[in-house]
């Protein structure tokens, strides 16, 4: 019996190149760590889909099980889990995020 939440997650991360599971929305992040990743993506000029887990408790737990990652935010690029706030900030600082986006063919402004 497949997990409906996992199916929805798979659909979101397949249909969108860059997906950020976060607390709040890109316009109104509800957590400093989520806001930090929104800022990194904005700085990189990346179009991304923000998904607010606060409005959907089943998604909040489901995403943590899906990625085996205990916290939010969670960034996905081309269906691949990239990391949480620490990793994304570290990658942004050393140019790895830019390289990953280019490597995956994700357009940046």
């Amino acid at each position: 019996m497949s997990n409906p939440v996992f199916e929805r997650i798979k659909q979101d991360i397949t249909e969108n190149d860059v997906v950020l599971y976060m607390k709040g929305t890109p316009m109104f992040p509800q957590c400093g760590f989520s806001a930090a990743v929104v800022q990194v993506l904005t700085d990189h000029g990346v179009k991304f889909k923000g998904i607010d887990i606060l409005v959907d408790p089943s998604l909040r737990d489901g995403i943590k099980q899906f990625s085996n990652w205990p916290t939010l935010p969670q960034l996905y690029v081309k269906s691949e889990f990239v990391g949480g706030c620490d990793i994304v900030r570290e990658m942004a600082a050393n140019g790895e995020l830019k390289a990953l986006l280019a490597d995956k063919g994700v357009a940046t402004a």
Partner: protein
Amino acid sequence: MAMEASVIEQMIKEAFPDAKVLIEDLRGDGDHYSALVVSEAFKGKSRVQQHQMVYGALQGKMGGELHALALQTTTPENAPDWAKA
């Protein structure tokens, strides 16, 4: 709910006996820490895997009792000088 830095360090060291661990309490509230963990066990692992290993050592506390842990992981070769002593 909060956790003591010493408890976090102990849990990490139980899972990584060779680890050097530096923990800082970012806000003094027992809920927001940064941790640098240096261990041979991280060799050949991606950053996500390394962090998942540390979260595993924290036995589910991460995201629950422990709200925020700004985590950095590395192997002894890439470690800062203080960890090489």
